């Protein structure tokens, strides 16, 4: 039970699984040899994500959506002077040491990027298994290998990629690549899936198919999903849409889950 209730959640809602409290982020740019320029991007973001919730973050390009998502994923740290931070199941992710942070990324969250970010040298199934390999050590992975393989195949099958296991990413279409990336993010069964414009690089229909796949997966597992997009239509599929503008969450709208 979290003692400090996040301002953005109503009193009746359950404790957030992932929460940003007054998260600020300023990039320090080097300009020239001696001058530094501060680029403030986030000015105090408050966002609580309830377990099982699908949250869409809408915002203009450059508004800091990716920055926020990276902070939530523990890939980057917010400005240290702020007393808030990122909390996962009430634990202060921001205070994690580098080892705990690695473990957090490996187990608790899964990340999907706009540009797929698959490793070109590995086959589809190897890309998916990479998550399992990284999570377990060498020997643990050896032991868990059949299990991990079964899960990888199952995931890829559920995304309609059963026949492409041995293919290289370069032999796949964009939509197929993104589905592989989602499968990789899900291999360790994370509690939260973070997707940064998963359809940003795809045409409308393919994007819809990706969102359908995400929705179907969530339907099966009840996974928490935080999705960044700048497409309001896609955002409307989510349980909840928040807007990011001028470094703050400016508006929250709760859409009743649209079954269609």
């Amino acid at each position, binding site marked *: 039970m979290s003692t400090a209730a996040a301002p953005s959640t109503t009193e009746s809602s359950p404790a957030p699984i992932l929460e940003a409290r007054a998260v600020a982020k300023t990039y320090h740019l080097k300009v020239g040899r001696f001058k530094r320029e501060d680029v403030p991007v986030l000015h105090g973001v408050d966002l609580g994500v309830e377990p099982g919730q699908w949250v869409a973050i809408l915002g203009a390009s450059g508004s800091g959506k990716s920055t926020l998502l*990276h902070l939530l*994923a523990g*890939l*980057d740290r917010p400005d240290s002077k702020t007393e808030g931070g990122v909390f996962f199941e009430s634990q202060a992710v921001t205070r994690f040491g*580098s*080892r705990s942070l*690695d*473990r*957090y*990324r*490996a*187990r608790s969250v899964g*990340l999907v*990027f706009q540009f797929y*970010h*698959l*490793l070109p*040298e*590995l086959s589809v199934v*190897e890309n998916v298994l*990479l*998550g399992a*390999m*990284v*999570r*377990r*050590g*060498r020997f643990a*992975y*050896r032991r868990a290998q059949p299990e991990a393989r079964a899960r990888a195949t199952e995931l890829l099958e559920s995304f309609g990629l059963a026949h492409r296991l041995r293919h290289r990413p370069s032999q796949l279409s964009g939509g197929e690549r993104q589905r592989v990336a989602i499968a*990789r*993010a899900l291999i360790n069964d994370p509690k939260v899936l973070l997707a940064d414009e998963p359809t940003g690089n795809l045409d409308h229909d393919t994007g819809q198919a990706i969102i359908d796949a995400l929705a179907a997966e969530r339907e099966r597992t009840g996974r928490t999903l935080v999705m960044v997009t700048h497409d309001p239509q896609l955002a409307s599929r989510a349980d909840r849409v928040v807007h990011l503008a001028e470094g703050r969450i400016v508006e929250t709208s709760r859409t009743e889950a649209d079954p269609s």
Partner: protein
Amino acid sequence: MYQALLTRRYLSSKIMPLLAAIAVMLCTAVVLLVWSIMGGFLVMLLDAGKAIVGDVAVSWPTAGFAHYEDLIDRLEEDENVAGATPVVETFGMLGLPDGRLQGVTVQGIDVQSYARVTEYERFLYWKPTDGPTPDDDGVGGDWRADEIGPWPELLADGLALGERDRVTGEFEPALVPGIEVAGFSRRDPESGFYRFGPVGMRTPEGDVRWESGFLPFLELTLNLVPVDRTGRPIEVVTRSYPVANEFRTEVFQIDSSTVFMPLAEAQRLLRLDAAELVRQEATDPFDEAFGQVEVLDESPARVTTVFVRGTGSMTPAELADRCHEIYMEFERERRGQVPPAGATRNEPGSGSIQITTWEQRQGMLIGAVQKEIALVLLILLVISFTASFLILAIFWAMVSEKTRDIGILRSIGATRAGVAWLWLRYGLAIGLIGSILGAALATLIVWNINPIHDWLGRTFAITVWDPKVYYFSRIPNDVEPVKAAIVVAGGLGFCLLGALIPAIRAAFLKPVEALRFE
């Protein structure tokens, strides 16, 4: 786990690691190649240098010292001495059949004891062997392996340092020159065996006529210069000798400039044999004292050097010290009759007897080679550092190219150490492949260095290994496994060194920045 998979994939799908592995391969190959050849060269030099002079030499050059039999007896009584042999060393001019005069080092040896102290018999070249037999037309193979040939007789002549008279069966004194002295016996570059070929003969008109011949069937003229007790040359003595055999140590410098002759003969020509110092009472035939000879002094036979061979229980230096002790005792009992013993065993120019190890005697030869090896290894070390920077550059480029992969790996939870290990492992793999291939390449080249060198000589007229410079007529072609292992380990080490900095860089790359990398 993912490191192994990625290393394998990176290795097989990129041209960069191939280039890096080739760089490593060439470097290790060059280092091992040069080290093997230079090292083998030194070993050959030491082996041959030692085998021809024994372990320790007691010498009093030019004038020689007397009572050497007594010294040899005393030396041989010592349990650490396997044998000792008297030698007369001098310089001479060897007259060849074609009229050339060749400056040589002449060693008058007592062949029986000399063969005990040194490996004289091994070095005699013309003797029966069981090598590959030549074809009918004499092409290929080892001529000495041919059963019809004078080889047993030549061996007997060589061991007797004389030529057997067909009628009396007695041996008359003969010479054994080094096989490169006259240049009439030629080394076949392919097989390494010596053949005899045309021999130049000086005609009475002064021309040189080439006819087929074989040095052991010919005669050589030896010119020596005896000196009197004050060290002044008397007059040149010239004598012709038959050739009993030829010898080959493979040290070109020795083989091209040394001639063996019987000790007694050398002593006689150099007037080092036993003699009486006399005074003829009168020079006037009408004087009644004419013809009366007064013996003033007896001068025993002398030698310039005694070679000593140890039993192997002591190092040459220890043996030399022991010989010095024995000599001091010997000199105490024969004070005034033999050269003084110095306070220490080897003080050149000090006016005392010189007792040296074979390494000191061959010092010029060995020292030069050791310096050369040190220099070459230093250069190779610099080359290896260069290679290390090359690997560093290649790895730096590879890490840069893979920056996004590092970001991806970190985003799915890979640790800093895990990413660093990925690159170290990659470097290790490239190092392992490169250095093992390099060692294999070097081994192949070294094993076939002589044919390769001869082929280079035939095809491009390139002669890198000139026996006149490198003493040996054959390039050493042995690769010591220890050296190969050290070089492979060194190659691996340099690769790790080269991969270390990029690995650390990869580990400290911020995941977000790595992901943003275009």
